[in-house]
């Protein structure tokens, strides 16, 4: 299951990167503005700390790469099974870092959120507020793809770090 989750994570990272590229066709540089709107609750059975606290837009927060934390369901759903969040490594794009978090419950991806993404200008915000929900949909529809390896046109050593193959390898490293 972990492999599948990470595969989806890689897919999402790719999508986020693509989307964030599209938002800045003419930009050459940017100062990353980060937001980490996730406030995990509950505790991780494995003992990992929660990946950061909520922050206001513009504040720099860098959740730990690859960290995971259990998220207890809301108290009104106390009978629901415990779900888990997995935060992917931040991918540095030339427009700023992008980081994605998955929520997994009962072996199924139940939510995908970009916890860090470029939002330097009002235009970014406008596009991302549309793109992120779209992203959630696409990632959820891709979750059933069980793959072990990826074939694609030659990537550079740097590009590998953000690739879907890298996500698959991390499942085994």
């Amino acid at each position, binding site marked *: 299951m972990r492999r599948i989750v990470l595969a989806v994570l890689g897919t999402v990272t*790719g*999508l986020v990167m693509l989307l964030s590229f599209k938002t800045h066709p003419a930009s050459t540089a940017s100062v990353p503005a980060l937001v980490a709107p996730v406030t995990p609750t509950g505790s991780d059975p494995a003992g990992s700390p929660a990946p950061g606290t909520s922050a206001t837009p513009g504040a720099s927060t860098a959740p730990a790469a690859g960290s995971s934390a259990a998220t207890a369901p809301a108290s009104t759903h106390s009978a629901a099974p415990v779900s888990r969040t997995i935060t992917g490594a931040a991918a540095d794009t030339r427009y700023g870092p992008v980081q994605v978090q998955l929520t997994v419950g009962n072996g199924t991806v139940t939510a995908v959120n970009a916890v860090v993404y470029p939002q330097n200008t009002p235009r970014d915000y406008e596009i991302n507020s549309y793109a992120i929900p779209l992203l959630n949909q696409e990632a959820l529809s891709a979750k059933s793809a069980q793959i072990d390896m990826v074939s*694609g*046109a030659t990537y550079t050593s740097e590009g*590998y770090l*953000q690739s879907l*193959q890298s996500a698959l*390898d991390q*499942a*085994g490293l």
Partner: protein
Amino acid sequence: MTATVAAGRTVHVEHCMGTAFTVDVRDPGDWQAAIGEVVTWLHHVDAVFSTYRPGSDISRLQRGELRLADADPLVAVVLDRCARVQADTGGAFTALSRGRIDPTGLVKGWAIERASALLRGRGAVNHAVNGGGDLQLAGEAAPGRGWQIGISDPHERGRVLAVVGGSELAVATSGVAERGNHILDPFTGRPAAALASATVIGPSLTLADAYATAAFVLGRDALRWIEGVPGYQALVVAADGGTARSSGWPHG
């Protein structure tokens, strides 16, 4: 970095030839020594065949400082394979274009195929070797389950547009994804532009890698050509986004 993940899986990622190689062994046991041999092999291939390293045999041959007879014997082996593939592809693949010696389009696949054979020789029956998106697969990913390979979408990196399953299988993809228009059409001298990517599957990665380069160059003629090559199938993605598969491409 190598890790034995659980009983039955060892993964190593090695950066070499400007890209990343993943060695993924799905047999129980200690594979550190065998993987070490693979790593040494890959770096040796880079040292001999790199067109970026001034001291490589290929660079020295290019400058006339080295005779073929004095070069690493593997150079003659590879150039011979290149010549055969050039004939197979009607010249769409060539290691000798416009005065340059450049077997790059075949060397990586060949190196990976040999790495896979090396692992098999050390007893790793079930494994995959992936070098920058070109793979040689052996055995199974898990008992009773063949390898499932995602073909990445050249228009949306990180997305998978097709999945192909298999056991003894090579999968190679050529395209423009990260390094720009880097495949020159030997017939025109200009970058091939009709396709965004070409994926070739078949038993040998040496051939699949070179055939993927040829298919990319052939563009809209790629499928017609691969239909005449026994044992190999292709999936092409057009620059404008459409995809097409040869008639024997596996379904599902």
